[in-house]
């Protein structure tokens, strides 16, 4: 049983979750859903050879292989790298609600959500609520959303930065009150 010990890592919660108190519960659940999302499924060469046949295949492969969260984050980086062949750019289209002509932005120029939001605020001359803030009187503010690989529109900031990079297709700045 192996683990990643004593290596550097990126943090496990560079994004949202409640800012009041670091929530262990949330983190744990997120990681589980991540495991499942990544399509953990067992495909042994011959099921009969598995010495211990569990009736619930999902649980069998839960938390396996024994690599921990930090490794997961690194993998996303690697995947992205392999995918874009060591390029230093990942340009995505950005639209603002109500404006037909979009812009393009290189996501790899930023290391986290705050940097991205800042750049977009500058580019579009608007106030975009950062993922961590609570929208108060938000009728004239914007929030940032993105389309992921499955075609769904999601709020930016829920998943770790590197995971976001690997799943984002394009961005949209929408009015806060329409979310």
């Amino acid at each position, binding site marked *: *049983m*192996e*683990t*990643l010990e*004593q*290596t*550097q*890592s*990126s*943090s*496990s*919660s*560079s994004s949202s979750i409640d*800012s009041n108190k*670091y929530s*262990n*519960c949330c*983190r*744990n659940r997120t*990681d*589980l859903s991540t*495991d499942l999302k*990544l*399509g*953990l499924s*067992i*495909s*042994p*060469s*011959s099921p009969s*050879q*598995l*010495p*211990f046949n*569990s009736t619930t295949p999902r*649980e*069998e*492969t*839960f*938390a*396996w*292989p*024994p*690599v*921990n*969260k*930090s*490794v997961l984050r*690194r*993998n996303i*980086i*690697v*995947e992205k*790298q*392999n995918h874009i062949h*060591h390029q*230093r750019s990942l340009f995505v289209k950005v639209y603002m609600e109500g404006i037909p002509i979009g812009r393009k932005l290189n996501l790899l120029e930023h*290391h*986290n959500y705050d940097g991205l939001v800042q750049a977009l605020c500058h580019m579009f001359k608007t106030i975009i609520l950062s993922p961590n803030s609570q929208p108060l009187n938000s009728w004239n503010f914007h929030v940032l959303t993105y389309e992921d690989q499955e075609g769904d529109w999601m709020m930016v900031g829920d998943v770790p*930065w590197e995971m976001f990079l690997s799943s984002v297709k394009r961005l949209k700045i929408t009015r806060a009150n329409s979310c």
Partner: protein
Amino acid sequence: MMCKSKKKKDSKHETNFMNSSSAFPDEVLERVLSMVKSRKDRSSVSLVCKEWYNAERWSRKNVFIGNCYSVTPEILTRRFPNIRSVTLKGKPRFSDFNLVPANWGADIHPWLVVFAEKYPFLEELKLKRMFVTDESLEFLAFSFPNFKALSLLSCDGFSTDGLAAVATYCKNLTELDIQENGIDDKNGNWLSCFPESFTSLEVLNFANLNNDVNFDALEKLVGRCKSLKTLKVNKSITLEQLQRLLVRAPQLCELGTGSFSQELTCQQHSELKRAFNNCKSLHTLSGLWVASTQYLEVLYPACTNLTFLNFSYAPLDSEDLSKLLVHCPNLRRLWVVDTVEDKGLEAVGTYCPLLEELRVFPADPFDEGVAHGVTESGFIAVSEGCRKLHYVLYFCRQMTNAAVATVVQNCPDFTHFRLCIMTPGQPDYLTDEPMDEAFGAVVKNCTKLQRLAVSGSLTDLTFEYIGRHAKNLETLSVAFAGSSDWGMQCVLYGCPKLRKLEIRDSPFGNAALFSGLGKYESMRSLWMSDCKVTMNGCRFVAQERPRLNVEVINEEGGDDSRAERVYIYRSVAGPRRDAPPFVLTL
């Protein structure tokens, strides 16, 4: 010397020179014993007689507690009054893989409260898998005026606010080492909290954190801390910034770079190369993150003296790695991602004959069939070139019995052998047989083996081999392996030095569990999850061995008779008083 007169009186007693009125004063004994550093030796010393026990406890300065629930802070401080350095480990290791629910425990705070009273001169705290809050870090910063070194590995519960408190108030800090924690990284402001008058830092590791720190503050900090030996920065630090840091700290021994991928002008490139060239003491290098090929060559001048290269976050390909390793003839430890593939490992075998430790991490552990990674040929290639290899951690997708046998014939000195074939229960891919013979070869050839992790399709035969041959084995990790209780019994009966046994998803039940009854008190802990052990079985163990804590973690709605996750450990502290509702102490 009073011995003479004593001998006349008690001539019948041969050992009277050992009695308490001998001329060997306590102070001298304490002084001598203070030079005994090894924990095992100190334990032995304390068992000789009462005087030696007392001298040992008064002279001990550091203490290592492998399981925070095995003892209470009150008991600890009562026995050892003069501790300056504490190392504490908390959660079971499988918590790294989410097998332990959040809020399980291992809170450092109750320890700190007692330490504040009993060890006001505490200097060093090293924590692994503990729960640490910002409040605790603040409390630490205020309670220990001499505090010097803080190391947090795989801990969780705190944010950068806690780090800010440490930076602000620990005036004598020499070490701040934050590794791989579940940290709420709010912002990089904590680094600016080191006062301008602060100059004592020797170790700074914040590679784990994401947010930008104030570079100006960092540069000044590095400039005024002349004793800085270890600096590991995070991804936000660019190559240009790295150059400026290196110029201020050419005395560095360990460096963790930032992102290695900025666009540099020719001049910047040569300045960076020169900066690396001036770091004559560098022996450890890590970081790189997103590493662009063209910049790796700036590292070459610094490579000659490198003994440890940690590229576990730099997904290099075989070519980049080979070109670099040519310059690293003195390498002892190498950590890489499996993007280097077998070809990269061949280069390791060719250029690094002094290598003692190799760890190969998977780039893409969950996506089967897409990534290539490394195979048995890379493993063999390394073993052929690096005969001094004694530590291996190897993640792969295919392996054969013959390959492992070849590897351990080439390298019989393994002390740590951790092989992870990533598909559970996978057999030898050429012969379709179980991997029993592979691990049989390991334990037969490697007589010094202390730590073993097995994987692949394994029957009880593997465990028979282990029980019969692995006489120095201390730690064993098992997953998806074995055919019956007999397997686990072989290990429990056969491995006299076993301290930690962790098992998941294997068909070992109560019979196997009971066969260790005579052994668990000599071990640190036993973990069994998703095996066949029942609640009644665990209750029986708890009854028979009151000095063990038998804890069961059950998910809600599960079968009440099955014990899903069992954690058994010896303790002088009695049952936990802080157990959450999902941890049942039997």
